[in-house]
């Protein structure tokens, strides 16, 4: 399913316009991140949870020129399935 269909479906169910729906999606993303930043987990019942994890810096080799590069530490957002959902799809 692509973005257009998804937005259309959610907008239809919530009785809002498609544009409003897309804006709310962006707002949702922003809200989630601000919630996650303060050392939290966002739990979606029956689906899984979102978490922010820190990755350490590491040395990697650029395959095209063989040079060693230093990748700095970074924060990434992670999604982990819940066990109920796992059983559901298996």
């Amino acid at each position: 399913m692509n973005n257009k269909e998804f937005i259309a479906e959610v907008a239809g169910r919530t009785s809002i316009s498609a544009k409003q729906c897309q804006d709310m999606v962006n707002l949702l993303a922003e809200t989630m991140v601000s919630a996650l930043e303060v050392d939290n987990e966002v739990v979606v019942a029956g689906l899984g949870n979102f978490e922010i994890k820190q990755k350490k810096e590491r040395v990697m080799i650029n395959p095209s020129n063989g040079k060693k590069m230093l990748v700095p530490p970074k924060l990434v957002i992670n999604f982990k399935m819940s066990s109920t959902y796992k059983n559901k799809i298996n």
Partner: protein
Amino acid sequence: MAKNKITLQALSDMMASNGACSKTTSEAFVRNFFSVLKEALQKDNIIKIKGFGTFKLVVVAARESVNVNTGERVSIAEYNKITFTPDKALKERVNKPFAQFDTIPVDDEDIEIIEGTAQEVGEEVPVETPVEKPVENVPVVVEPVVAEEPVAEAPVAKEEEAPVIAPLISEPSPKVAEPIDFEEPEAAPAPEPEPVVEEKAEPVAEPAPEPVAEDKTEEKIETEPEPEPQPAVPEAEETPKKKSRKGCIIVSIILGVILVAALVAGAYYLGSQHVLESPAEVQKPVVKVDTLTKVDTVQAPAPKVDAVADSLAQLREKAANFEQVEGGEYLIVGTKTYRKMKANYTLTRLTVHVYGDKKYLPYVIKYNNIKNPDMVPIGTRLRFPELIEK
């Protein structure tokens, strides 16, 4: 790290508190968002949401593993998994605290600092100048190499060439190389060295301010080209030809080796068609045709069965007679074939020969009650089980 769990309700409250929308709308929106997401995943297996990310349903292949308590081989069955890859905007938003860093090229000395190897204070000083050090090394390393070859390029008088080449004479390189080296510089500026040499022939007797060793080599070279000034040039001309000829020879040798290898492989293939049960490396993988010549009467179930409906049900009953692998997707229902362990072979390799995939290894181990799969003695008779899907 103890983390607070934020529920969907809390999220929708946060959204509404911004003032962008009413509480009811945000609640409904959040709930619908995730339910449509779940449904879409079931229907389509992939869903891309702009401003958020991509949710994908992937299939994780079955793999073998070890039961941590018993050390027994276990097979982890195939399963489905949801993966989430955040959108670019979301990624950047999340990484805001670390945004100023960038990937940089790094030198080897720095890696030691990063990887935390213990270093004394004194040692750090040379490490602190990493940029200079390798640069210094490079010209030093390159120089002797440079000295050898581009001697030909330098259209300088031989006096200057000789002191550079002199240190090389002491190197363990074969002395045969030297006359060629000297002849090459003679080849490149072809007409030049000849008059130079001839000029030198006279002042040989003069007390030259050069070390004795150089004198001797110079004399040697001079006497060589002198009586044969003409052969020097054609010889020099030959050396580039020789080099191209050498390349041709190497290529033809490689082709010859490939031909021989192809012939040998063909011979084996032909040979394999005659051999039935021998434990040679010649067996084709996934031997579907039954090659049993020594069927054990105790192992009654027919090993020739392919998935036919009736016999499948019968087989499932027979599966109860055998010990099964925990977590496995397949049931052992009898013996498929036999093999003997050969020298320099592994259980994994034999499994691949019989089934075509090494994922069946735990079944083989279980069926043969092998205690140590890494140490199966040569000559051990192994039974490979017939497997059906659960």
